[in-house]
């Protein structure tokens, strides 16, 4: 099941893309410093893109990312 990592998912564009990039069989992994609540087929990672260890973990298993 493809996973897409979306950084800045709580931002203006991230919020608009979240519902629009939802697709059957796809998992959206949402990363932001701001808190988010995961919906169906979503995962939430609350961290900064400047945290290398956290970002490395967030990229694990992701086939594409949008930053």
């Amino acid at each position, binding site marked *: 099941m493809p996973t897409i990592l979306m950084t800045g998912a709580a931002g203006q564009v991230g919020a*608009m893309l979240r519902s*629009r*990039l939802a697709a059957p069989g796809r998992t959206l992994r949402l990363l932001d410093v701001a808190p988010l609540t995961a919906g169906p087929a979503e995962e939430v990672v609350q961290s900064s893109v400047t945290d290398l260890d956290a970002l490395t973990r967030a990229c694990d298993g992701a086939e*594409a*990312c949008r*930053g």
Partner: protein
Amino acid sequence: MFASSNHAVGFSPAAAFPVPDYAFPAPDTYYGVSKAAGEALASLYHHRYGLDAICLRILTCTERPENVRSLSTWLSPGDAGRLFEACLAAPGPGFRVAYGVSRNTRGGWVSLTEARALGYEPRDDSEPFAAEVIARCGPPDPADPVLAHLGGEFCLPAFDAGRLS
């Protein structure tokens, strides 16, 4: 995919519209510099490590166009979804730089050639909002400095570094 911005080339003058794909950076703010730097990193990671990297210079992505400039620069949420979806589906894209904008009647500020080559076909147009925007903001003024460059108000002195808090 890297969500770049028109502000990476914000100082592109209206006389040069449509701004070409891959136009050399002309950032209008440190925000624009950060986007140009992100594009440079994407290029590095593509050429050195083989990563597919698409830099999307997004114009004005809002629920609806809110001012005269955005009648030309609006990227509707639906078209934004279609643009990113097209990029996800593009086979072996390599390194690309493309613009993200809807098919606005008052558009033509940037090239859509590369975005279309990636499979994007915009469907939305700001024009149905034009009457309301113009009633609220006034008609487009060719002398308005906001309309002189792609980056709009970001190019104005109010965005000089010393005035930013």
